[in-house]
C-alpha cells in the first residue's frame, strides 16, 4: 500500500478494453509529511477520490486484475481508500 495525493485525472477512448468505465486518476506518491516522492502514476478508482485527496493505493497487479474481472488486464494500480 502506497500513500499518494490525487493530482489529476485522464480520459481515454482508445485503450485496452479492461480500462473502459473506470475513473483513471493521476496519483503523486507522498510521504507522511506530504512531500512528493517519485513520478506520478495512473490508478483506477471506484471511491470517487477528487483533486487534492490523500489516498492509499495498491500496486498488486494480480488483485487488481481480479478486481476488474479479467486476467488479461494490464492494470496494476488501484485506489484502496481515501484518507480522512
Amino acid at each position, binding site marked *: 500500500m502506497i500513500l499518494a*495525493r490525487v*493530482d*489529476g*485525472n*485522464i*480520459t*481515454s*477512448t*482508445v*485503450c*485496452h478494453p479492461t*480500462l473502459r468505465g473506470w475513473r*483513471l486518476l*493521476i496519483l*503523486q506518491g507522498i510521504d507522511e509529511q*506530504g512531500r*512528493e516522492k517519485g*513520478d*506520478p*502514476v*495512473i*490508478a483506477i478508482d471506484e471511491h470517487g477520490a477528487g*483533486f*487534492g485527496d490523500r489516498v492509499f493505493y495498491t500496486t498488486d*497487479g494480480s488483485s487488481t*486484475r481480479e478486481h476488474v474481472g479479467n*486476467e*488479461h*488486464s*494490464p*492494470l*496494476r*494500480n488501484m485506489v484502496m481508500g481515501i484518507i480522512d
Partner: protein
Amino acid sequence: MRLGRVIGRVTLSRQDPAFRGARWLIVSPMSRPQLSRPDEEIVSASASAVVYDDLGAGRGDIIGFVEGAEATAPFDRPTPIDAYNAAIIENLNYQPAN
C-alpha cells in the same frame, strides 16, 4: 501505468515470430514538469522506453504504458515484452496541489 509521450518509432526487419504485426513506439516517460506543460512536448531526463503498440498511437501522442509483468498480461501466451501501450490519452487534467 505511467504516462509518456511518443517521440518516435522503431521498425524491425528480423524479429521474434511472436511480434509479427506489432508496432514499436519510442516513449519518453512524463514526470511533473512535462505533465504541467503537456503542449510543449518536452522530452524528460528519464530513459525512453520501447513500447509495444496495437492501439495505433502516433508521434506526439500521450499514452499510458505499463511495464514488467503487466506488459505481458494482455497476451494469451508468454510473450517477451517489457512495455505495453494500454491507453491513448485524450484529456489530461493535471493540477498538483502544492
